[in-house]
Structures are given as structure tokens and as C-alpha cells.
């Protein structure tokens, strides 16, 4: 069997160290999903460490009315004392005006975050989200819900940390 040279050994060690370092310091659980309904498409990801992060993106090509999309939480229940992050509404050049209700709701119908945003013509509107819950929420399930009634392409992006 051929022996490794000193240089090859060095590279192998560096590669092993790099692999070790690339692992997250805090173990993360994750879940994700996507879909292509009649009104457009969406994708989402939920990651959990000591806090839970929800990332969601949806493109509405046509008005959807009220739609609800369930998310999977890797480890439940979680206790939510606080929420922070942002929600963005983008109307691309092909769109006209934007108007959406976007909300993150738990299994007990508690609205954790909700915005009703408007965008005049093509452009981007971003809103910060920050909420503290006097009575912490025990959350076993989550869903993201939208109401879109204006025609034209609208893109909604959600990034929320639940702690």
C-alpha cells in the first residue's frame, strides 16, 4: 500500500479540521417544504436551536384569497416569549400594486405576527416585527396565512425568530 506523503497528510488533516469547524456550534434541527399551488409558489424552512427560526417565501402570480400553509416544527412544543424579524412585500416590474395580509399563527389561533402591507407600484416594502408575549405561548404547530386580492405579481418574504 502506498504511503501518504507529508504534504498529502497535511492536506488531509486540514480537510478534517475544516469539516469539524464547519459543523454548527449549536445543534440544529430543521424542516422545510415547498409547493406550487394555482396562485404561485412557496417555500419555507424552520430551524431550531435554542430559538426557532421561520423563513418563508411566497410568490403570488394571481390573487389567492385566503390561504393557509402549515409548517412543521421539528421539536414541539416550543414556548414563545418573544418574536422578532421582518416581513417584506415586493412588487416586481411586472406587477401593479401590492396589498397583502401575512400572518404567522399557532395551533390555538394566536397571531404571533401579522402585517397588512401596501405597496404602490413596483418596489419593496419592509416592516420590522417585534413582539413580547406577556403570557408565553405554548406552540405545538404553526401555519403561515395570507390574504391577497389584488392582481399582479407580489412576493412575500418572512424571516422571524421565535424565542
Amino acid at each position, binding site marked *: 500500500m502506498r504511503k501518504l506523503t507529508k504534504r498529502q497528510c497535511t492536506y488531509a488533516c486540514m480537510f478534517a479540521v475544516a469539516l469539524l469547524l464547519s459543523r454548527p456550534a449549536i445543534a440544529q434541527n430543521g424542516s422545510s417544504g415547498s409547493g406550487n399551488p394555482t396562485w404561485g409558489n412557496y417555500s419555507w424552512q424552520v430551524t431550531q436551536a435554542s430559538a426557532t427560526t421561520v423563513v418563508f417565501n411566497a410568490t403570488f402570480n394571481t390573487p389567492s384569497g*385566503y390561504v393557509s400553509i402549515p409548517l412543521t416544527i421539528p421539536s414541539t412544543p416550543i414556548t414563545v416569549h418573544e*418574536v422578532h424579524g421582518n416581513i417584506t412585500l415586493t412588487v416586481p416590474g411586472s406587477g401593479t400594486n401590492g396589498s397583502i395580509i401575512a400572518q404567522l399563527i399557532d395551533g390555538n389561533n394566536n397571531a404571533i405576527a401579522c*402585517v397588512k402591507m401596501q405597496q404602490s407600484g413596483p418596489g419593496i416594502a419592509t416592516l420590522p416585527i417585534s*413582539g413580547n408575549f406577556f*403570557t408565553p405561548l405554548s406552540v405545538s404547530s404553526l401555519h403561515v396565512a395570507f390574504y391577497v386580492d389584488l392582481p399582479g405579481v407580489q412576493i412575500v418574504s418572512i424571516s422571524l425568530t421565535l424565542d
Partner: protein
Amino acid sequence: MTRKRRTAHFRVRLKTFLIIAAVGVLLCGNALGTCSIKTGTTKTCGNVTPSWGGPGTYYSWQVSPGIVTNLLTSEMGITPPSPGTTQIPVQIPQTGGTTVHEVHGNVAFMVWPPASCGSGSVIAQVRDQSGNTIAGVYLVGLSSVGSYNFPIKANLSKPLPITSLLLQTYTSQCGAVTISWSLVME
């Protein structure tokens, strides 16, 4: 009474009955608030074409309760002539009222073209039954046409017991505007 007169009389009564029934259905629809469900769990709502404002003026609101939170969403579209101060009462689902410790969400304001007034301004407030302003904005000097989204966030050091809400708005400009609220109250 001849058969001809009796038939004519019956037709008149039938028409009267149908008109009354139609008006009744319209009025009932208005009074009950034929709300379109926009947040999925609406418990109380209103959807009204008011007597003030110009053609197409409308407002709708709804409150969606959870175990812990109440979600208020509303939208009001006003066309000229501007009504000045408006007050829209909002019922909350809890019969015995609830307590608000914290509120977060946003208010959105949109000025539609053509706007001949130069700049837009609006005072919009969400008040409780005692007149406490839970959230409010005074937006002035906005460019004539466009949309504006502002975050709302507050912890109330003295929690408010609420039994009803009031959406109070003052608009004075001559263009068409839309004002929307979305508030999570807990």
C-alpha cells in the same frame, strides 16, 4: 271585487312584499356585516359602505381571537370629499372583555393617483372604550402618491382592560387614500 281586480290587487301586494323582502335582505346584510374572511379565524367583523366620503368609500374590520392574542385587521378606503374625522366602532369577541399588555403590528397608508393635493396627511388611531390610544400615527408631508408602511410596537406598563375598540381617523386631503391596520394585541 271582480276576478281581474283581485288579480291586480294580488300582484301589487306581491310586488310590495318582494320589495320589502329585498330591502330587508340588504339592510340585514349591512347590519350583520357581510365580512369576507381575510384572517381565517374571524369572530367579529364589519364591512360597511358609509354615508360619508365619496363614491366607493368603504371600511372593513375584523378581530380574530386566539387563546392568548387578539388580531385586529382593518382597511378603510376614502374617496373625496374627505370626511374629516371618522369613528368606526369595533366589537371584540370576548363577552367580558380582555386585557391588553402588549401590541405589535403595522399601519399602512396609501395615496392613490391622481393626487392633486401636493402632500398626504392622516391621523389614525386605535382607541379603547375609555379613549386610551393603543396605537396611533400622525403622518404628514408624505409625497403625493405612494404607499407607506410603519411598524407599531408597544408594551403597556399599565395593562388596559378593553371591552371595545374605536378606529378614529382624520383625513383632509383631496385624493383617494387607503388606511390599514394590523395589530396583534396580547
